[in-house]
């Protein structure tokens, strides 16, 4: 029987089996390694695009999830863990993101100069398999499990193939991210505990939704569990002030690894908030709302200024990726249909654009031998295509119209206007900041006169334009950005379809206007009940 569920399963197991083959494939030779990795990255990408094209026409939905299927690996009876896969409108774009960015990173890595290429590609494929799994897991245990599966190769790859400070960076990242992962694991277990350890509900998101909508959770439990999830996920997403691992980690990570981590894996925490934490714990999210907004503004403004101060191109991209997380957190903080839609759109767009930036930064490095932006200059005439791509990528990352990022940021601002109008000003100011550092980087590297040190280090060496091996991933990513930028409905339709059926997002914006004293006082529970009945009447489905 060949169902779409099997396709989801295949998208996880093809990269994994390719990885296993590669680990033992010392004698494969370069072309053999490339062939196997090409299969391992290409098929999941094709599957993700195929499922995305089919998604809008799906009618056979289970709680909004399409392609649902599952199998029991042995923990169902005792602790309610099942391998349950499926996609809804929130996870579909991210699943697609994992497929596309994975393919781009795979192509980039295949032609990189890494030593022991077969191990390198193998680890990257393990990561890819985890990434495909994260976003199609309905079981929140496996959601966590696949995240960890994708995280471990990151540590190893930074440690072996990383840059100058790799040993310290790998260690810092490992300890920091383990802390975040552990906190979120506790939060997820606590969430399961709210069902009274009912193995039939288990860790399944669908089961939890049904159980919690029927029974509700006390305000204290909501607050505490949401805090665990917010800070656990927050560390993983580099929420200010838990961001310090990110720029240094990315600066030292090998490019393909940084693409997958910054582009896709980091969306895990945000996705967890959008898909799990906020819908299941709406009043916890409400109580912590101010925290999210302020910390997100910290991401945007404080890290924005830090980004401006960077001279190292890769560090700058790392910081800018931390900074852009702020917009997504703001989108989540609005808890409205528009805001969440914008946040998911921005997750997708940011994932693609940051991966593109890493590809191009490495291309610059390969030509100049340095990441120091002040030490380059005048690369544009020598490598015009690279310059064009870089400028386009910077514009996308700033959020100019024509690229997917624009729609994401734009909708987040609109949603923000509705319930945190004051926060729009610093957020828009953040766009100015990104424009400053983005365009300045392009100007420093590609335009103006060549610096003396660059001319000297160049000597007689000729600099070529971007090679096909660099061009292929860059093109894939840029085309995706432009395509969604021109036709945002391609993913916004599916997002909308799911977010609109999520009672929390439909009803919450009005609740945000409830004064904070009221929201955190004893009345919260009654509020929840009132909201539940109201929702039940309106949506035919209770909170």
């Amino acid at each position, binding site marked *: 029987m060949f169902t779409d569920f099997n396709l989801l399963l295949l998208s996880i197991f093809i990269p994994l089996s390719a990885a296993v083959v590669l680990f033992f494939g010392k004698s494969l030779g370069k072309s053999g390694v490339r062939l196997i990795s090409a299969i391992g990255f290409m098929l999941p990408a094709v599957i993700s695009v195929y499922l995305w094209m089919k998604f809008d026409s799906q009618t056979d939905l289970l709680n909004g999830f399409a392609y649902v299927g599952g199998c*029991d*690996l*042995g*923990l169902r*009876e*005792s*602790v309610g863990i099942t391998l349950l896969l499926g996609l809804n409108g929130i996870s579909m774009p991210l699943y697609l993101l994992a497929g596309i960015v994975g393919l781009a990173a795979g192509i980039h890595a295949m032609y990189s100069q890494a030593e022991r290429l077969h191990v390198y590609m193998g680890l990257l494929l393990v990561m890819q398999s985890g990434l495909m799994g994260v976003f199609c897991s309905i079981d929140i*245990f496996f959601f*966590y*499990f696949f995240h*960890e*599966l994708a995280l*471990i190769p990151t*540590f*190893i790859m930074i*440690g*072996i193939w990383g840059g100058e400070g*790799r*040993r310290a960076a*790998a*260690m810092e990242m*490992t*300890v920091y991210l*383990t*802390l975040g992962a*552990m*906190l979120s*694991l*506790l939060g997820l*277990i*606590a969430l*399961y*505990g709210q069902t009274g*350890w009912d193995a039939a509900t288990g860790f399944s998101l669908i089961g939890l939704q049904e159980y919690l909508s029927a029974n509700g959770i006390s305000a204290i439990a909501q607050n505490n569990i949401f805090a665990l999830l917010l800070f656990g996920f927050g560390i993983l997403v580099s929420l200010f002030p838990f961001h310090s691992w990110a720029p240094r980690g990315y600066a030292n990570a090998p490019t393909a690894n940084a693409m997958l981590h910054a582009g896709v894996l980091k969306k895990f925490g945000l996705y967890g908030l959008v898909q799990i934490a906020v819908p299941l714990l709406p009043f916890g999210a409400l109580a912590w709302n101010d925290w999210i907004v302020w910390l997100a503004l910290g991401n945007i403004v404080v890290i924005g200024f830090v980004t401006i101060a960077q001279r190292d191109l890769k560090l700058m991209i790392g910081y800018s990726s931390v900074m852009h997380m702020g917009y997504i957190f703001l989108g989540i903080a609005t808890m409205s249909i528009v805001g969440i839609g914008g946040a998911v759109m921005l997750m997708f767009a940011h994932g693609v654009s940051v991966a593109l930036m890493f590809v191009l930064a490495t291309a610059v490095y390969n030509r100049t031998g340095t990441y120091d932006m002040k030490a380059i200059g005048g690369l544009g005439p020598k490598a015009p295509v690279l310059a064009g791509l870089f400028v386009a990528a910077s514009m996308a990352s700033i959020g100019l119209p024509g690229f997917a990022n624009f729609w994401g940021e734009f909708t987040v601002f609109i949603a923000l206007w509705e319930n945190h109008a004051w926060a729009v000003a610093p957020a828009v100011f953040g766009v100015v900041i990104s424009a400053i550092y983005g365009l300045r980087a392009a100007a420093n590297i590609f335009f103006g006169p060549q610096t003396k040190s660059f001319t000297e280090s160049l000597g007689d060496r000729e600099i070529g334009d971007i090679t096909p091996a660099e061009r292929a991933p860059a093109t894939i990513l840029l085309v995706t950005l432009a395509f969604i930028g021109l036709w945002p409905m391609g993913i916004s339709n599916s997002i909308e379809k799911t977010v609109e059926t999520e009672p929390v997002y439909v009803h919450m914006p009005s609740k945000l206007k409830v004064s904070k004293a009221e929201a955190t006082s004893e009345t919260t529970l009654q509020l929840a009940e009132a909201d539940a009945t109201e929702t039940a009447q309106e949506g035919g489905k209770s909170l």
Partner: protein
Amino acid sequence: MNYNGFQELASTNQWGAIWPELVMAGIAILVLCLDLFLPSTRKRIIPTFAIASQLGLLGVLVLGCGCEVGTSGPLFGGMIESGPYLGYMRAFFVLSSALVCYLAISYLSRQNLPRSEFFLVTILVSASMMLLVQSSNFVMLFVALETVTIGFYVLVSYCRYSAFSLEAGLKYLILGALSSAILLFGIVLLYGAASNPALKGATSDAMNFTELGKFIAQNAHEPLVLIGATLVICGICFKIGAVPFQIWVPDVYQGAPTPVTAFLAISSKAAGFFVLMNLIIGPFAHLTALTQPLLSAIAIITILFGNLTAIGQRNVKRVIGLSGIAHAGYLLIAIVAMTNPQGASLAPWAIIFYLFAYLFASFAIFGVMVHLAGAADEFQELEHYQKLAERQPFLAGVLAIGLGSLAGIPPLAGFIGKLLIFIAAFQAGLYVLLGAAIIGVVISIYYYFGWIREAFFVKPTLPGDEAKQAYPMPGAVGIFHKVMLSLLVILTVVLGLFQRGIFGG
């Protein structure tokens, strides 16, 4: 004892019920006989025989779990009673014993030491551990425990021309005797209290767990009972290496021959936990007011102590020893969860699963350690692992998976073990303990990952470093070792992915 008593004793003497223990003892005696009567040229088959026969027994135990000979209920006049998890415990000890014998082959090939006695003592100790975990009478418990401990005195100082081994043996002897004394004192106090006719529910058979349990149920606040139970728990804490009875661990682990270190770290610890499980669900079931706070406090301190002290170590045997203390702390959380009715159903499974995951991962690491150790077994520094990934990718991979499992990284078995313990702790509402466990896990990443880093990440060489690069290169890994280590690694991965058929028997 009157006539009826003897009759009952005779009817419960079902030797068939302890056939695995008898087979183990038989193997030990056969090893001894082979050593006596075989010509010295043929003696190399002794280790193979020891391992093969134990693996055979293990196969029968695993495949024939259903066909237990004999009945449940008290046997041998209440001396032993098979609990619900006995099948797992037996399999654990037989497997562990076979693997210790496997490690011993590599180790002994490098030392000029008598061979057969090592296997003999190891197998006998394992057999008494198997009796220890089914004892339902304090006399039986103490006798079995002393058999185990005396065997360990021999094994720890087995390398008799190494000062470290002898030092370790002496330390283990003195502290072991101390802990036995503490345990014995506790038993005596309990016995004295329970057979005091002035107290309600006094019994004439106060050594028996069931009788004692009935007595304690009625006298849970009797000071003598509380002191006695505390001392008994302290005596067992020595075996599992929980703070404040962990003092011996680093030195003994470092000085003991590596296979013995593995034996101590795995079997001895597991035996302590299985006994603790039996006591918690048995005679001490009504002492939760004492056991819960006592064990919680021990667990927290143990986790933090083990992890914090392991950070600074450079000797891998000490790292393993101290991290083993931390693992004892995590397991104690599950023991505490067992005292709570909410967590009582999952916690025992969590302990068993965790111990099996710990067994596979630890033996994989010890396998690598034995291979890398030179003749001076006690000096195994982290620096010896430098560039292991380049020189011996296979061993480096085994090491990484073993350490990853101990650190609790998915998709390895250790992660599922930790997950189950966390869930059990959540069910029992042990939030403070969970907090300590999280802190411990995060700290543990530092030294586990540091070890992996040593093996995998090439250190930028500084001028002057070349002089220090004089560590002996490990020899090539034989096919037999490859198969054994691969099996352990595969089991670690498979247990992390599929747990079907392990739960609920």
